[in-house]
């Protein structure tokens, strides 16, 4: 009888513990996303040059991570999240290439896909002192230079420099070897310095 009571108590206790665990896991995931989302959005935005599209890609990456990889150790979330995001960005870029080809075929060009830096620039909301402007311009120059890099070099540079991933984490996020990351990153830094010049601030 006591055994039955004990097993009943255990069976009653389990759902509560599982619920608590789920809530904790969700809260942890929420904190992770809150920490990474702004940088992820900027990285996606630099890659696709459209804020709304970047927002969609970041949200898709969040959903996939939450749905498929939430049970993984939290230390693995960052490279996993960026791997998902980079895959989404690549898919988006492929679709855009096909779309642009089709548009050119029908003679419409890609006028509705032109990037408008003024329209898409973040709203400074009244904060426009000289240093803000200088920083803004410098970042825009860097974004333009990044846009001219091969995709893999751009990925390696942004993941290492902007997100602060180490070589192993970047390799996991890019799905390539650490040696490839080092090569892409080194070439990216060299190209960017050459493009932006020594006086870039």
């Amino acid at each position, binding site marked *: 009888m006591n055994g039955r009571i004990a097993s009943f108590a255990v069976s009653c206790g389990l759902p509560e513990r599982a619920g608590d665990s789920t809530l904790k896991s969700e809260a942890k995931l929420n904190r992770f996303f*809150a920490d990474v989302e*702004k940088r992820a959005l900027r990285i996606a935005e630099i890659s696709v040059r459209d804020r709304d599209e970047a*927002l969609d890609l970041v949200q898709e990456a*969040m959903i996939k991570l939450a749905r498929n990889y939430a049970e993984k150790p939290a230390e693995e979330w960052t490279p996993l999240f960026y791997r998902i995001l980079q895959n989404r960005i690549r898919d988006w870029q492929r679709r855009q290439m096909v779309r642009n080809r089709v548009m050119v075929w029908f003679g419409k060009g890609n006028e509705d896909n032109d990037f408008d830096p003024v329209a898409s620039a*973040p709203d400074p909301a009244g904060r426009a002192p000289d240093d803000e402007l200088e920083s803004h311009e410098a*970042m825009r120059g860097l974004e333009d230079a990044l846009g001219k890099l091969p995709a893999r070099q751009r990925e390696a540079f942004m993941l290492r420099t902007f997100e602060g991933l180490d070589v192993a984490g970047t390799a996991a996020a890019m799905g390539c070897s650490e040696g490839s990351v080092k090569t892409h990153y080194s070439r990216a*830094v060299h190209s960017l*310095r050459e493009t932006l010049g020594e006086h870039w601030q």
Partner: protein
Amino acid sequence: MNEGPDNSADDVFVAKARQRFEESVDRMDGATRSKLNRARHAALAEAGSRQPARLQWATGVAAAALLAVLVWTGNQPPQDVAAPAVADIEILLTEDSLEMLEDLEFYSWIDLDEASEMPPEPENHVG
């Protein structure tokens, strides 16, 4: 070898790029932050509303098993043909019929003989 100064210049450049990037993140406007916040909550809600992968897998296996059972039973002979066999078992298991078990071969031969004398089933009963 001038790797030292070059690396140092690379490091300065990378640090500056990181600083500019962080400043651009800090400049992000309230509307975009709000959109990000909504996107995060929507992602968590959508992911939470879906069944866990293991549960989806188990549901799929259960559905496949059910389908297999349905297909298998669909290919079985009609129930009315199997009914005499069930009736025979009931007769055999009654206490006063235990002697029949000793002559099981004989009774199964009678059963077969009776079955062969039954009129043929209609052709269209399978469906």
